[in-house]
């Protein structure tokens, strides 16, 4: 049994055997929280902070956040930057290409609500107008520590997910923030 599993309180080993017992919710949520693979995808200046978060100083990979170059392998999408109306259909498209369960972190004021471009003719007033958002992260731009806090919040949210609710996957909701548990 590896160190990681030994340290988990909710897993019990049977005496003398190589068998471990745990609830399926716990095991599935543990694996999901420990390998949140984001899509390599940035829209504006927030993407610079996101790249810094992936690099060695902040090193998100120690939390299992490991950027993937294709939506087919990604679990979470950091919407890092201003969502222009011209960019909205591609975002919906790559969101649909991500496999379930999928999560969205709206990073920065622009992705939350349009930010300083609220009165613009060309900016979507928040990415939650087009795809469901799990964590809203304010800031202009948020520092990598703030993005780490958003990832931790998302992990807390995932830990409350239950298999019996909609098979553990994200419920298909069209708009607004989602309630997963």
């Amino acid at each position, binding site marked *: 049994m590896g160190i990681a599993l030994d340290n988990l309180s909710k897993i019990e080993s049977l005496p003398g055997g190589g068998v471990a017992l745990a609830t399926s919710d716990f095991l599935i949520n543990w694996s999901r929280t420990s390998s949140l693979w984001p899509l390599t995808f940035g829209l504006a200046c927030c993407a610079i902070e996101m790249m810094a978060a992936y690099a060695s100083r902040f090193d998100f990979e120690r939390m299992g956040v490991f950027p993937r170059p294709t939506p087919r392998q990604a679990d979470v999408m950091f919407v890092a930057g201003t969502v222009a*109306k*011209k960019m*909205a259909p591609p975002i919906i498209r790559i969101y649909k290409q991500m496999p379930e369960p999928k999560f969205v972190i709206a990073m920065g004021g622009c992705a939350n609500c349009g930010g300083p471009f609220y009165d613009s*003719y*060309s900016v*979507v*007033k928040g990415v939650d*107008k*087009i795809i469901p958002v799990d964590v809203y992260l304010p800031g202009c731009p948020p520092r990598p520590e703030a993005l780490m806090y958003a990832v931790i919040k998302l992990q807390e949210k995932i830990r409350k997910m239950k298999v019996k609710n909609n098979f553990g996957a994200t419920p298909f909701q069209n708009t607004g923030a989602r309630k997963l548990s």
Partner: protein
Amino acid sequence: MTAEEIFIKLQASFPGLVKSEERIKDYPTWTVPAQSVRTVCEQLRSGFSFNYLDFITAVDWPGSVGNTVPPAAGRDVFELVYLISALSTGVKICLRCEISRKEPAFIPSLYGVFMAADWQEREVYDLFGIHFEGHPNLKRILTPETQLGYPLRKDYAHVPDSYD
């Protein structure tokens, strides 16, 4: 050859070409009749090795509405601004021309004279609604196809869409 010498040579064949009262930054600024902007640019390119178009942009002067300070007062025009360079000599020349603000606004395209004119003219068309005659693919380039109106016009009124 300096900009002054080029101006004297060109003015012989284009009497409408005059020096503008206002200089844009420190560039030699000439006012060109809108209908001859393409031929002036062709001349500059072939005869004076002006081989680079820095940018095309436009200014909306919406008549008396909100413009009380001269020289803008009462001008009801679109002003097109072209900046062209001769990369070999480093001379830059700014061309301005005015067209009527009445719909539809037309000006000859520089497509085929300068490579850069293609997308630049599409951008000006997208944001100001100025039609460039002779451009083979004049459609919106920056805003989505669902965009109504031309956003950088002074009288643009935004109609909320599904993303607002």
